[in-house]
């Protein structure tokens, strides 16, 4: 056996695994989305049944898909997800730009600890990090207590169960995904280049906008995609911090499955999510292939 053969043979493990655990499930999603829910195991109808003449008959239906297009709830969920994911991406970008820049320009010995400090929250439970915000945001929570105590407001702000709470929670949860690729591209920019710009009379702000940011463009795009894609399908944040108005694709899918036990509609929603994310996913792939931006 040659080395190439060894690599080629061992590649069948991940390839086979992906075929069974990623590609096959997507095919099954498609199949179930053409069924009707029923009270049996499995809780959806067959696509083909053997008719009286002994021939296979098509029994599938477009019902789930029709609902998705006709019921405004799902349209709102899609619009809500798109809006919230875009807004989250923007706030993450605005917060992460100065952070990533500061880390990349910090003395060498400082960079690793500063970077670790950004990654550390990512290693602690997502659920717990979202949960921590409940005690901060609720009407009798700490933010309101502080604002009331200092006399800035005289009635508690109703932040929890609002769009603002979902935005705060999502920004908090996904910020590290933005900082890391930004840092990776900022760190590659040579100090000499910035010094040259300064010598030629550029202000730090001008240098940042006209030299650093254009050079870091792949990192900016990668960061935006790394935040936008998971934010589109988030369930935990809108469920715990949002109110009844914050219906998003993730919550819609969860409710169809767990509350209504409607597997076909849940499958159609999942495929819709996948379709919407296909373009951003492809973009991210291209970006990572071209310029080794760390994920």
């Amino acid at each position: 056996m040659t080395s190439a053969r060894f690599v080629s043979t061992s590649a069948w493990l991940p390839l086979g695994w992906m075929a069974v655990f990623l590609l096959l499930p997507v095919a099954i999603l498609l199949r179930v989305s053409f069924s009707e829910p029923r009270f049996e195991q499995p809780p959806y109808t067959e696509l083909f049944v053997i008719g009286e003449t002994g021939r296979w008959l098509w029994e599938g239906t477009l019902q789930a898909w029709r609902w998705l297009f006709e019921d405004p709830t799902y349209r709102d969920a899609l619009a809500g997800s798109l809006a919230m994911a875009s807004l989250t991406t923007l706030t993450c970008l605005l917060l992460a730009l100065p952070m990533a820049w500061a880390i990349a320009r910090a003395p060498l010995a400082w960079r690793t600890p500063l970077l670790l400090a950004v990654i550390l929250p990512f290693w602690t439970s997502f659920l717990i990090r979202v949960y921590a915000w409940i005690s901060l945001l609720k009407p009798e929570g700490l933010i309101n207590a502080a604002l009331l105590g200092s006399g800035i407001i005289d009635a508690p702000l109703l932040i929890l169960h609002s769009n603002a709470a979902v935005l705060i929670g999502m920004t908090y949860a996904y910020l590290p995904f933005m900082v890391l690729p930004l840092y990776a591209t900022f760190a590659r920019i040579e100090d000499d280049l910035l010094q040259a710009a300064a010598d030629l009379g550029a202000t730090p702000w001008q240098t940042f906008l006209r030299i650093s940011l254009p050079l870091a463009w792949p990192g900016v795009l990668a960061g935006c995609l790394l935040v936008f894609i998971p934010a589109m399908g988030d369930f935990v944040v809108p469920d715990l911090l949002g109110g009844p108005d914050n219906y998003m694709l993730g919550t819609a899918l969860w409710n169809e499955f767990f509350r209504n036990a409607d597997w076909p509609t849940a499958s159609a929603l999942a495929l819709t999510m996948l379709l919407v994310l296909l373009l951003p996913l492809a973009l991210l792939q291209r970006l990572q292939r071209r310029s080794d931006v760390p994920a």
Partner: protein
Amino acid sequence: MNTQARGTARLGFLTAVSFGYAFLYIPIVLLVLYSFNDSRLVTVWGGFSTRWYSALFENQVLLTAAWRSLQVAVTSASLATLVGLAAGLALVRLSGFRRGLLMACFGSLLVMPDVLIGLSMLLLFVNLEQWVGWPAGRGLTTVSLAHLTFASAYVAVVVRARLLQVDSSIEEAARDLGARPGQAFWLVTVPLIKPALISGWLLAFTLSLDDLVVASFVSGPGSSTLPMVIYSSVRLGVTPEVNALATLLIAAVALGLLSAALINRFISRPDSSR
């Protein structure tokens, strides 16, 4: 630009950076602080107390779920490291269609929303049971399989990054000296990328321990994992016991990361680029 304006710009910049870090850490710090609060209310400091920790250790539901989650995390992380190692190797040394396919699959898994992974995995398990009778029902096996799948993508990223730095001529030297390809890989390359395997395992372990959504879809009756139990108690309102549990988890993660950093430094002193 004069020095004063430069100073103002610098101040604004520092404010923005500190705001970012404060934003990341204030909720966690408060959570830890309030786990030692004697009062049930977050806004009232009732004095230092460890009563929520004692309550935690008497909560059988939480403890059983924690044990379950630990089993799932160890199993799925170990197997994910194996799949991720093979995937990382293929991503670096393979070319053509199969590499592109692997890139697309593992790349998508990294960012794909949990609900999507959860539902499609559940449908897979339900159908597999119909077709081949395995896995029978849903439980810790199905949760482990699902976790193993998405965690392997993270391991693959870490392994690939490390493999790109390893000089392949070392393995070739082993081949020239008569080692079989498998031998050369396991005896030469695997030890070289050990730090990546350790951090990949830790990452997979943490991701598994952390997962609520996928586990909710693919677990069965009586196999609720720790995040599922936390979630249902959080839905009923903030409980100080959860604060205590969260503090313990954060401490465990911090300790794990610290030891990983130390191991990393210890093993790969000459080229500790990761």
